[in-house]
């Protein structure tokens, strides 16, 4: 499959997943309606919609806060801005995304924004201190690919949906347990039990949907980077460098984990067996080893044992 076809099939998947979210939200509302009161179910859904819209409007600011990304003055970090600019040109983006800096020793990067015009790329100081120019550019191209594929939009939506479902299910669950008998309709015990089980499981189902969405996107963004720079090896090298690095990020807020180029929360991958293997369903990112292997297949090369010893890009920026 070419990248274009991948993006197309990806769009379809996105639509299905968003539909899945909506369905799940409907089920949660329905369960509350059935077990407690029909009007309550409707109120819950309307409340969910309002909460969702509010979250959508403030998402940009919220993501900046949760990741700790700081705005950078227009004259600072010129060489870095230039790299972002060049990659955006290659991606054909109408506007160059803004650059934000996260003061964190762990090398990582993310992209955010509902529309390409208002997107930004966040990089950690650790990334600039670790990556040489070629690999940094590959990471930036990965993030720009997220913007180009509208992943940032979709993942923001998914995060909000998952959040809304968790909140509504939680409220419904509490009302069922504590507020119980008074408002319960004649449905009986069976309905109540069903509703309780459903409301407990719903947030996990939402999480599962959200994670499955983001794992595939990482592969696609890697491929996008390879295409934009015509250099799959650079992306593979960058991933290897991330793999070898052992510092983990301070802003490991799980709710924005899927935004980063490498999962900020977990570092041990590929070694899980048996029941633990199930936990990989909740991973936001595929194992780095798999992503590197995919790049090697695309480019028809084999990563060398040792990484090139080029100067990290930070030296060009004059930050220690």
């Amino acid at each position, binding site marked *: 499959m070419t990248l274009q076809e991948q993006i197309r099939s990806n769009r379809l998947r996105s639509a299905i997943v968003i539909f899945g979210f909506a369905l799940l939200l409907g089920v949660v509302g329905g369960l509350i309606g059935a077990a407690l009161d029909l009007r309550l179910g409707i109120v819950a859904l309307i409340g969910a919609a309002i909460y969702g819209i509010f979250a959508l409007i403030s998402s940009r600011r919220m993501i900046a806060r949760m990741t700790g990304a700081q705005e950078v003055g227009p004259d600072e970090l010129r060489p870095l801005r230039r790299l972002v600019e060049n990659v955006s040109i290659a991606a054909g983006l109408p506007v160059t995304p803004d650059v934000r800096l996260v003061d964190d020793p762990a090398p990582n990067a993310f992209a955010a924004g509902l529309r390409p015009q208002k997107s930004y790329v966040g990089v950690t100081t650790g990334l600039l201190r670790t990556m040489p120019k070629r690999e940094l550019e590959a990471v930036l191209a990965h993030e720009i690919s997220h913007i180009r594929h509208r992943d940032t939009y979709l993942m923001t939506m998914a995060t909000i949906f998952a959040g809304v479902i968790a909140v509504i299910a939680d409220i419904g669950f509490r009302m069922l347990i504590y507020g119980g008998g008074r408002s319960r309709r004649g449905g009986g015990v069976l309905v109540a039990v069903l509703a309780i089980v459903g409301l407990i499981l719903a947030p996990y189902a939402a999480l599962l949907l959200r994670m499955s969405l983001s794992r595939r996107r990482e592969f696609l963004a890697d491929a996008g980077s390879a295409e934009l720079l015509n250099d*799959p090896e650079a992306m593979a090298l960058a991933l290897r460098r991330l793999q070898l690095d052992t510092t983990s990020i301070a802003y490991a807020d799980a709710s924005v984990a899927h935004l980063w180029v490498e999962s900020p929360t977990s570092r041990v991958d590929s070694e899980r067996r048996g029941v633990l293997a199930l936990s990989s369903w909740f991973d936001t990112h595929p194992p780095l080893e798999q992503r590197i292997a995919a790049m090697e297949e695309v480019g028809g090369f084999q990563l060398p044992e040792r990484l090139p010893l080029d100067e990290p890009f930070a030296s060009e920026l004059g930050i220690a």
Partner: protein
Amino acid sequence: MLWLWILIGVLVLLGILFVLGYNRLVRLRNEVNTGWANIEVQLERRTDLIPNLVEIVRGYAAHERGVFDEVTRARAGVQQAGSPGAAAEANAGLTVALGRLFAVAEAYPDLKASENFSQLQDELTDTEDKISAARRYYNATVMNFNNGVQSLPWVLFARPLGFRAREFFSAEGDTGVPQVTFATGS
């Protein structure tokens, strides 16, 4: 009567397919045009930088006239190029000429130490990077558009409707289109 309805249904369906396909080609063509505009912006930026550069170098190395003439000619070639292929060719020629100019500059330590000179050199390098970035995007859009125009059934209608395959921005025959095929796991 039934046959008539079936006929109408088929015609409506064909009409819808035609509209969708036509709109797709229009979209692809617009992408090509945007891609080309991006390249033109960068080419213009490059040619705009050159008179200043030549002036500065002339100040230190006035007698190297042959190199200046060559750069000026190559610059004019880029400005006059009438097609993407010709522009790419001319641009490659300009790169060669500039390479010679910078080689000459190597022999003049004062020139190399000049703030203006190093700044211009830096800008030119950046512009070259941007041209190659814009080229990658443009060539990718051209390939998508040409695939659309040259495959069935549009290869039959494209020409009468005014869609013509476009030229790549490439010198010496390479298309410069990265071919990334990809099989995802998970």
